[in-house]
């Protein structure tokens, strides 16, 4: 193997790693705030990619019906919960706005503009707008009713949501794979390397997204509130932070990040309704390596995962997935040994 191939593999690894980093950071965020191990994030990535590809192809993506359906379901949940707590009058208007009006407006907008060749920028924005609300709606329907349950119960629920979303992906997007056209045909030569415009876009978007998240957590009151919820749920409630809303916000950010990642990979590979799972899992491996706790470590680990994957696909393409997933076992073991006796600390 010569240097060029190695450089090529590294570049490939870093491009994928940047996407895994985004996903991993979102997973850490969701886990910290809600204790949910958000396995179905991968599905949202695939939905993002497919939505973008369909919009680019001038079609109405099935996402709109998915969004409308989840909105309706969340509305039912909200109304029932409010009625039970005898607070229907107080909460109805909000439920109508969040569960019906916003998804409804997005569906209408998509139906109106689909096929009008608005350009990639508009499709990109529309994709983000369609996928992001799915996060809080999923949280409302699947996780919020059992927000106090054990991590394990939440995790099995997450697996249930994953199963359901893969199936729904097949229903709403079909079994056929899609690939979006590249953002640009740009090719840049940096030394011996040939870097595609798409890769540059990935680096740029990932960097901007990570910096934006960092600013949000460090400066904004709501960012601090999310961190506070992650550090100490009871403490957060005692200062008046609604942890349910914090959960919704975390899921919204995770869905936004998933949509972003989806749009970025859509031109790089053919995406099927069930492709997301494996992509999400790799972000997940990175998040676990970082103990589901540290954002910078997650980003670093994600780049590592991307590079290992790229090298493995060259040297042992058959064993690529096996190598990536077995990476996690020693890490889990190490984390567990560090974690002994958390049972009784009082």
């Amino acid at each position, binding site marked *: 193997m010569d240097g060029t191939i190695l450089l090529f593999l590294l570049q490939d690894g870093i491009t994928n790693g940047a996407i895994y980093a985004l996903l991993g950071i979102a997973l850490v965020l969701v886990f910290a705030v809600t204790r949910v191990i958000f396995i179905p994030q991968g599905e949202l990535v695939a939905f993002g990619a497919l939505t973008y590809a369909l919009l680019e192809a001038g079609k109405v993506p099935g996402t709109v019906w998915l969004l409308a359906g989840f909105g309706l379901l969340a509305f039912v949940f909200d109304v029932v919960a409010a009625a039970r707590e005898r607070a229907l009058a107080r909460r109805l208007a909000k439920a109508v706005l969040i569960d019906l009006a916003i998804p409804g407006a997005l569906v209408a907008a998509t139906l109106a503009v689909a096929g009008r060749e608005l350009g990639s920028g508009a499709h990109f924005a529309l994709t983000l707008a369609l996928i992001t609300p799915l996060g809080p709606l999923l949280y409302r329907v699947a996780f919020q009713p059992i927000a106090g349950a054990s991590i394990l119960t939440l995790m099995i629920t997450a697996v*249930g949501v994953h199963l359901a979303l893969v199936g729904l992906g097949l*229903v709403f997007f079909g079994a056929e794979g899609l690939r979006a056209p590249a953002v640009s045909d740009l090719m840049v030569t940096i030394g011996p390397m040939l870097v595609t415009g798409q890769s540059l876009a990935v680096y740029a978007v990932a960097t901007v997204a990570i910096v934006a998240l960092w600013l949000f957590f460090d400066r904004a009151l709501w960012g601090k509130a999310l961190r506070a919820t992650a550090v100490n749920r009871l403490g957060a409630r005692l200062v008046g932070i609604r942890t349910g809303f914090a959960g919704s916000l975390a899921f919204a950010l995770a869905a936004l990040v998933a949509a972003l990642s989806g749009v970025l990979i859509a031109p790089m590979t053919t995406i099927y309704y069930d492709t997301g799972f494996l992509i999400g899992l790799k972000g997940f491996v990175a998040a676990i390596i970082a103990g589901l706790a540290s954002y910078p470590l997650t980003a670093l680990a994600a780049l590592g995962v991307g590079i290992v994957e790229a090298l493995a696909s060259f040297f042992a393409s058959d064993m690529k997935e096996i190598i990536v997933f*077995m990476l996690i076992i020693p890490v889990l073991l190490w984390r567990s040994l560090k974690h002994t006796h958390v049972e009784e600390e009082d």
Partner: protein
Amino acid sequence: MNPRRAFLLLVVVLVLVPLVPGVPIFWITLLGNVGLAALVAMGLVLLTGVGGMTSFGQAAFCGFGAYATAVLTTAWGWSPWAALPVSLAVSGGAAVVLGLITVRLSGHFLPLGTMAWGLSLYYLFGKLDLLGRHDGLSGIPPLEIAGHALTDPRAVHYVIWIAVIAAGVLTTHLLDSRIGRAIRALRKGQIAAEAFGIDAARTKLIVFVWAALLAGLSGWLYAHVQRTVTPAPFGLNAGIEYLFMAVVGGSGQIWGAIVGAGLVTLMKEALQRIVPALFGNAMQLEGVVFGIVLVALLQVAREGLWPHLARFVPGRPRTAPAEAAPLARRMLGAGDTSRPLLVLEAARKQFGGLIAVNDVSFKVGRGEIVALIGPNGAGKSTTFNLITGVASLTSGTVKFDGAVISGTSPQVIAGRGVARTFQHVKLEPEMTVLENVAMGAHLRGRSGVLASMLRLDRRDEGRILKEAATQIERVGLTEHMTKPAGSLALGQQRVVEIARALAMDPELLLLDEPAAGLRHFEKEALADLLKRLRAEGMSVLLVEHDMGFVMGITDHIVVLDFGTKIAEGPPETIKTHPAVLEAYLGGAA
């Protein structure tokens, strides 16, 4: 209907179904599939519901069983029966290797680990030439009995269900035994289990391997029923499906596994028929329905269906035999009586910068009641944890009967005769008081896994239960013997913990706030009991806030404040000790 009748009814129905004329073959095949799934789900119930280890990778063990026999019977020409032990050995061996790692994973890391190896093994099955890569292996011979090939689903039905029933009976026996109690103690954390000498990692491994053997058996049967093996049924989705069955059935109930497997298999079948009729094409909607049902189930009925069914077959709680040979007892005071039983020498525990226990030294003599007192947060519970090996010392030593015990494990310390209770009660609330107390006598029994499964442990088990009943009587809770421990008042639960500690036949009893939550007369009864124990030669170290209680029974008091020993001596001296008064009453006095 009692459980025995319900069980017989199940067997009769299973025997008769294939014999009823006109029952379509298709139904029989379906019932066989239910049995194959039930085998795996049963192991998973034990692993997840009882043992507290959630596995998403269980399908991989079916894969080991299935591929092992497929290779041996197709490439090597072995007979299926000869391949059975190898199939089981391969799944069991794989379980030992994976289990050694997996049981050491804590909390949610464990299911994530099973997901990782489950997924990796699935890919591995599809990449190995030996296993036919993605196409798998075909041409596997059917099972044969006395020269007759079992190709008729009716015949296969009997083989499958004999395996299921046998597995269910063995597993039920296992749970209703000394080892079973150890397994059930694991779910709520290991500290209590280890305090009674249960080797948590080993017990978990036993469960893990048994669950894998059941899955391997299912895989072996599957290979010879389907006659072809591909990677798909051994992937992560299949693993999730099996877990789903266990949850649907009720994830603590062995027989619930059959209910779960039945419902899920039938639901899958129904969906495969209904969906094309509704949508015009064969879309795989099982995932959607399974996912939604799983999420809904966790929201409305986290216990699964079995508890609702079990109301119709109420079981009788186990009771102790009227007569049983007493267990061997430890000779109290058999050691060198000239030296104290327990000695702490400059024991120190540091958590980061915080010094929880600061070079504390004290002794507990034989046949003495010593109290450890101090304000909240003074380091009393941490000191208990240092003595019992739950926490490790930063420096210093703890000696018991002359030997250094610091640095050893809680099981070893328990084995030497140190029993304890907990400040936050650690009983199994669903188990009866009798079973909880019997857990204390774990180290005094001998029967292992095989003996338990085959019911060769009944004599041993009877002696343990008899001992537990004796201790319950001793602490005055006989009338509560067969109630679930969780139904007792908190103060009584503390007394159950004392009975459990006594069942260990200890030489030293460590009691963490034994009188908290007790009414006045209950406290008096407890004080009498402790005095009796002392008269019998037992030594007691207790942490307690009720000063009246402490002053009335102790020989010696050690006072801690901010992790440091500020005074020690007989009760009369402590009452008037200026440093003690200062610590308790504070500057605001």
